[in-house]
């Protein structure tokens, strides 16, 4: 039976009403729809950003952040010391070991979803209490709560292998406008590039005339429709202007090597360029982590690529000072079973797994929580994804106790109301 769902479109008219008073902020910057618009000017000036690295299928915590070498389920890999004395990670992550002083790892994740189909969405929606509405993905939530940066680039961009385009479903009840703009295989969306035959100055001139027409038309009519039209053309302009972000031929060859000549490396590099260009929320996606068979060879290959790409981006964000105002998260929908199955694989394990974070608002060099000696279960308090959403919102300066969504007048918490930020993770 399909899950019950109250879908977003019935709220469309309410959304339009919010837009009524908000002017040019349509679709992205609107504070409308928040009961308590507390995203202060201060916050906007700092231009906080998010890099969200999604390892789809399930990173093995044992082959990464929480190794248990020499135990029943530890597998063949050793652990190595890191730049934080006393903290060890799996030997598959030599480069990230050197970045450990910038990272905060939570080793005591304990979530509920044991399947990809439920987990991928539930985890990225923060698994709030069931309110009969579909919650937005983290990126859509940030697009709503924080809007685009001053760059005016689309606030939620998703760099991923495979198909690209506009992914409205991430927006949940906030509506399709808060969905992701996906760059499939790192490629720009259709019609991004200005035709070679169209002169830049002439393009500007025709748009100037279009704007003048719109202004006159809107003078004595309801503003939102025309403003929406102008807004999408302006955003398109901004994307077209920054089309160089996608032109990998212009990238420094040394960067290309450093990030790694593989999908994750190249897409992480594009992600960094997007952050530099001012995209508010960048999700970089890697697929193929569901290692039910041959876990150790597969994770060795995958974790190696992740080690290279993720350490490179951390280094670069730190070097430019951007890390101070960029929240970085790397995670999957769950971890992998300590028990090794008959195909030398590890299966799905939401009971005890790890998430890594860095940057804005996050306590650098911290390791929070622990699993037992064999890594089978969390020792002490386990944390659910709702705790993480609280942590991330707080790290970005958004107080989930004060900020609420308004869905057709129904107040809805932005994160699970029975949970709080994880102690020891915030700077």
């Amino acid at each position: 039976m399909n899950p019950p769902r109250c879908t977003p479109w019935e709220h469309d008219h309410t959304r339009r009403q919010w837009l009524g008073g908000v002017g040019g902020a349509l679709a992205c910057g609107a504070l409308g729809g928040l009961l308590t618009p507390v995203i202060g000017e201060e916050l906007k000036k700092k231009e906080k950003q998010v890099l969200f690295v999604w390892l789809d299928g399930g990173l093995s915590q044992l082959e990464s952040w929480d190794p248990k070498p020499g135990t029943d389920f530890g597998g063949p890999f050793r652990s190595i010391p890191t730049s934080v004395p006393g903290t060890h990670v799996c030997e598959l992550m030599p480069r990230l070991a050197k970045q450990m002083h910038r990272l905060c790892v939570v080793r005591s994740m304990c979530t509920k979803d044991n399947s990809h189909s439920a987990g991928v969405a539930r985890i990225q929606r923060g698994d709030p209490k069931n309110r009969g509405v579909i919650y937005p993905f983290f990126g859509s939530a940030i697009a709503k709560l924080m809007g685009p940066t001053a760059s005016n680039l689309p606030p939620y961009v998703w760099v991923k292998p495979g198909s690209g385009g506009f992914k409205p479903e991430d927006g949940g009840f906030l509506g399709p406008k808060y969905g992701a703009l996906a760059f499939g295989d790192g490629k720009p969306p259709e019609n991004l590039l200005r035709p070679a035959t169209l002169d830049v100055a002439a393009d500007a001139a025709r748009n100037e005339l279009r704007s003048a027409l719109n202004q006159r038309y809107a003078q004595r009519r309801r503003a939102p429709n025309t403003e929406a039209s102008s807004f999408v053309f302006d955003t398109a302009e901004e994307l077209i202007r920054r089309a160089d972000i996608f032109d990998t031929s212009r990238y420094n060859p040394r960067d290309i090597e450093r990030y790694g000549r593989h999908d994750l490396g190249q897409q992480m590099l594009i992600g960094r360029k997007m952050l530099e260009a001012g995209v508010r929320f960048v999700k970089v996606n890697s697929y193929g982590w569901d290692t039910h068979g041959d876990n150790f060879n597969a994770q060795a290959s995958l974790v190696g690529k992740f080690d290279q790409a993720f350490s490179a981006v951390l280094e670069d964000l730190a070097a430019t000072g951007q890390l101070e105002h960029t929240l970085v998260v790397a995670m999957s929908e769950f971890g992998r079973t300590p028990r090794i199955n008959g195909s030398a694989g590890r299966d799905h394990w939401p009971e005890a797994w790890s998430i890594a974070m860095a940057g804005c608002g996050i306590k650098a060099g911290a390791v929070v929580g622990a699993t037992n000696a064999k890594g089978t279960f969390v020792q002490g308090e386990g944390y659910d994804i709702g705790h993480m959403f609280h942590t991330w919102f707080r790290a970005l300066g958004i107080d989930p106790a004060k900020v609420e969504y308004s869905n057709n007048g129904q107040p809805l918490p932005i994160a699970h109301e029975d949970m709080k930020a994880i102690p020891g993770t915030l700077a």
Partner: protein
Amino acid sequence: MRRGSSAVHTRVRSQLAILFLTAAAATDAAVQAALPLHQQIDALVAAKAGKVPLAGPADDAEFLRRATLDFAGEIPSADEVRAFLADKAADKRARLIDRLFAGSRYAGTMAGRFDVMLMERRGEDAQWRGWLEAAFRDNKPWDVMSREMLNPNFADPARNGAGHFITKRLESYGQNTVDYPGLTRDVGRMFMGVDLQCTQCHKHLTVKDYKQVDFQGLFVAFQNLKLQTPNDTFKVRWTSEGLVTKEMEFSSVLTEIKGATGPRVPFGQSVAIPTFEKGQEWLEAPARPKNTPGKPKFSPLAEITQRLVAPDNANFTRNIANRVWFLQMGRGLFEPLDLAHSENPPSHPELLDLLAGELQAHKFDLKWLLRELALTQTYQRSSVLMETAAKSPEELYVAAKERPIAAEALVRSVLIATGELERVGKLPKVERKKDAKDTPRPDTLSLEEMTAAFQAAFANAAREPELSVSPTLKGALFMRNSSVLRTLLQPREGNLADRLLKLKEPAQIADTVYLHILSRPPTAEERAEVVAWLARQKSAREETLANLAWALLASAEFFMNH
């Protein structure tokens, strides 16, 4: 129902009497009989607006464009604009409406509008579309259409297209299983204006009228259907019904309170389920060897259909009255269109009662209702506000509301504006391999392919209603950079670009682009603006003129039905 038989009608009549009978000469009944529906509507809208000033009538050009978009699915050609503006007859608007309603594009246009409303972009289907077009061509009453959709006769080639409403929704898509709750929900939404989705598992949390049994009673009939592939008898995908021998039990996930129901129209009575002796349940017994699903004697679908499409189901009539009103005015008398309940009263209760009552009295004649609405001052008002937006609440209908133009009407409008419809319409349909690496040259695209390109850029995703003007980044990128649009602005014998190139005077150029694209002459100020803009351009003349046309095509004014 007899006209004026209800208390409601009495109320409406007395209001109208006050409005119209200042001289107090005629009797109540005489007024009622004398006034056509469109005048009664305007009286009620004016009464509700009170002191808020009403916008003046749309000028001829705006009215012509609006009505042509609504009933022919395209903008008027420049010649049609010129002719309409030159026509001095007092009744030219009524005559235009009659012409459009009798025109060759009426049935296809209305079919398209109802397709988007009923199917919400789930994909195209020739039989369904054919059935819809025939329904509007023959002016099939809405109650008949509804019965054909809800309890389809899959064996009748003239009517089996209607079954698409159900069969399409029984397809599994993506990772979803067959969405019986979704079908149940859509029956409520589309035919009764109630969205019962939340009541699948518990009573509605914010709508006190919606109970779990309201969902479950419909669900009994629709979850009992099974999608079947075409065969000799049924040339389209069809559905079989299973045996329903006892009431369906359900329990609330919130309270664990249990209930049970047979087939039941929301807010109605449960149908008693007959008992048959074992072996006697079937009209046609299922046959294993031939793998035929059989036909039960008791059809919950027939029971539901008969009771849902019925004079005593007020929600059925009010839903279609509200939806047709929405199609023409851009705003429902109650909104959302699928959230009718006692705590969500219509903005104009008497008006909705009037429309529903009259529609029923006219045997669900949609063409008659559409025509009456098109004749109202309310529909014919200008979209220019008299007061600030804040002082002109939308629900008062004091000015025309801007409405979206569907992708199919948009592509035709762009082709008419650029003078390219004839050329593109003649291009042969080309079978292209889906995996072909080389994209076809944009100037070889047939009308069908051109339409697909516009749908990709401007239509909503499947299952997402198209209710309001909502520009997207995707659409803006298409307008700005797509070679499909660009090719239409290249000069070819007789098209707009060609005409503009042959014009010497900048003022003539301004007049021509405005007339062809925005379907009206420019004001003096607008003409001067174009002339000044042209003077500033340094590109080649051909490029400049294409850019001028582009600016008008990309304007908010062109993209809305205002």
